[in-house]
């Protein structure tokens, strides 16, 4: 599960556990070291003490158990004393569970060894070599070599059982304390993580109140922590875009339904009124003509909508062919010739027949048809429409210029919107389904190009820019 809270807690506990483990290892090692150090000190003292258990009798060291008994250390400690040749001069009574390491007189002092027998406890052994005077006194006494002296080796061993037990106890204590610390820290971090994540829940709760019906609501950044302000700003910006999208969608749906329902209502009521009583044939024919016109206008809207829907769904990817705009424009001119003649609008094209662009011929023809048709439709009687094409930089540019009524500046950016009409009162008079320019824009943008308009009182210029792909 991808839980932020869980990740926070786990991350925190992981760091904490590493710190505690390091601390534990440090304490354990230091304690072990201290214990060994103390042990070695005791053993060193014991070896020196053990040398005093010897008496020199007629130049020979002799072990005196009485001395040993009086000074016996209370610890589980054993010893042995040997002469230079390795003969045992004396040793502590009782069996031992390990074998003494070999040692010679004259070894550097002191020598420490840990014996780990296969069975039983470990032992720490300290070996001490010394020379004893053999001439005077009845007590062994160290003196420099070369005098009347003999070398002895004293080995003292102490079981590590005690310090091992102490270390074991320390480990359990450390483990217990560490576990308790981690548990407490775990609980604490659970609460802290919850607190840290509370703003996220607040943002969620605030967003829940915003729905399709009240998309105009925004989150107030001042009611959130400063760290969340960028998030709130972005969320508000996303809501802005969403709201605009919904508005456009609603407007489009309302427009589309209006554009379809109005002619549909006209058609249905015309038929209904017609059927209410018998009619002479002439009246029927006229009604049929009217109805056909109405149905054709509906057809234009429906086909425009279907084309736009197909292009919106990306199902009309343009083909890339070498197309001559001159030929396309000529074709469009001939197909709208009757209308233009009726309005006495002159059509002119100034395009090099050899000029070619990379485009989908059918789509580019439709775009040109819509633009030229508009240019004629909104022209003044006796005006003209001219189409030019050429290359600017690497781009192909096609311009459709008319001598029409022009488009007010404030309406120019909106003419490419679906169902947008500059002057709704002329919609009926000029015809058109209100989708022509949106289809043009969709087609040109599908080619990776741009279409723009500039307009003044002397007429409008629509400019198509196609990149040379």
């Amino acid at each position: 599960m991808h839980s932020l809270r869980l990740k926070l807690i786990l991350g925190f506990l992981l760091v904490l556990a590493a710190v505690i483990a390091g601390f534990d290892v440090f304490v354990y090692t230091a304690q072990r070291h201290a214990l060994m150090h103390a042990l070695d000190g005791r053993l060193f003292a014991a070896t020196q003490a053990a040398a005093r258990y010897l008496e020199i009798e007629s130049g020979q060291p002799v072990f005196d158990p009485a001395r040993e008994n009086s000074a016996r250390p209370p610890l589980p400690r054993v010893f042995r004393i040997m002469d230079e040749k390795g003969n045992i001069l004396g040793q502590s009574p009782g069996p031992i569970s390990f074998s003494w390491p070999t040692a010679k007189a004259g070894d550097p002092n002191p020598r420490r060894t840990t014996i780990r027998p296969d069975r039983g406890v470990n032992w720490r052994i300290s070996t001490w070599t010394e020379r004893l005077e053999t001439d005077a006194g009845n007590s062994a006494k160290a003196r420099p070599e070369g005098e009347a002296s003999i070398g002895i080796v004293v080995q003292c061993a102490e079981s590590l059982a005690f310090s091992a037990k102490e270390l074991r106890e320390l480990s359990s204590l450390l483990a217990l304390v560490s576990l308790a610390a981690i548990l407490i820290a775990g609980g604490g971090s659970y609460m802290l993580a919850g607190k840290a994540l509370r703003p996220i829940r607040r943002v969620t709760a605030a967003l829940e109140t915003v729905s399709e019906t009240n998309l105009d609501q925004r989150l107030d950044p001042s009611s959130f922590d400063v760290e969340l302000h960028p998030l709130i700003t972005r969320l508000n910006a996303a809501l802005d875009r969403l709201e605009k999208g919904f508005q456009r969608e609603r407007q489009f749906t309302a427009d589309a339904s209006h554009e379809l329902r109005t002619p549909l209502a006209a058609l249905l009521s015309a038929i209904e009124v017609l059927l209410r009583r018998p009619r002479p044939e002439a009246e029927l024919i006229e009604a049929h003509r009217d109805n056909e016109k109405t149905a054709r206008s509906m057809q234009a809207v429906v086909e425009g909508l279907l084309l736009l829907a197909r292009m919106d769904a990306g199902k009309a990817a343009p083909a890339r062919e070498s197309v001559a705009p001159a030929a396309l424009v000529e074709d469009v001119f001939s197909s709208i010739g009757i209308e233009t003649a009726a309005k006495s609008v002159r059509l002119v094209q100034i395009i090099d027949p050899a000029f070619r662009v990379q485009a989908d011929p059918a789509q580019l023809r439709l775009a040109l048809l819509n633009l030229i048709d508009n240019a004629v439709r909104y022209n003044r009687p006796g005006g003209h429409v001219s189409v030019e094409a050429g290359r600017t930089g690497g781009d192909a540019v096609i311009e459709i210029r008319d001598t029409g009524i022009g488009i007010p500046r404030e309406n120019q950016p909106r003419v490419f919107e679906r169902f947008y009409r500059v002057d709704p009162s002329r919609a009926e008079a000029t015809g058109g389904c209100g989708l022509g320019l949106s289809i043009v824009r969709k087609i040109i943008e599908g080619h990776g190009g741009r279409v723009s308009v500039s307009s003044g009182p002397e007429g409008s210029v629509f400019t198509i820019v196609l990149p040379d792909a």
Partner: protein
Amino acid sequence: MRILVVEDNRSLLKTLKKGLVEESFAVDTAEDGEEGLYLAGINDYDIVILDLLLPKIDGWTVLREMRAKGLSTHVLILTARDAPEDKVRGLDGGADDYLTKPFRFEELLARVRALIRRKYQAKNPRLAVADLEIDTSSHRVLRGGREIPLQPKEYALLEYLAHRAGEIVPRAAIWEHLYDWQDDTTSNIIDVYISRLRRKIDRPGLRPLFQTIRGEGYLMRGD
């Protein structure tokens, strides 16, 4: 009864005019809000059929302006806008009825008739003056159980006078409710239709229902 239709779709406007005229209504038409508001202000219409999305001035504004001028004409909104909020806005803006496109012409007629009853405070779609019965939905007229066939204008005149039975109705008012502004008749035509109604309804031996009040107008009474 005289109706103003404000609608920017010419083909629908043409159909509405034709259908309503065939139902004996006098119909004026306007293709934009400005013209509609102007006509509503200068003529005494029984009903205004108003589209909402209109050129120049939209339907809501036309309605608001009409009410602001104190016009009490019944307004039926006929629009493609079918959202509940549009209906609320229309009715709360002073409309009397709301019908969405596409619609059945029959239903539009029934709503128009209902609004006319409301205007003349008649609950019963069958008007009665003495033993004369007028079925306003089928336009059938009976006197003493015998059906009287009438021409559309004759019927329109009869229905108007019957709605205002007991009142002296000036000739100009009758003319205004029977003819649209494009008609080039004069109010003298009313006298012609009154005499035709008298011939068909006030037959010899029956009690006369129509009276001429000299210099004032006509009175229809059953008591």
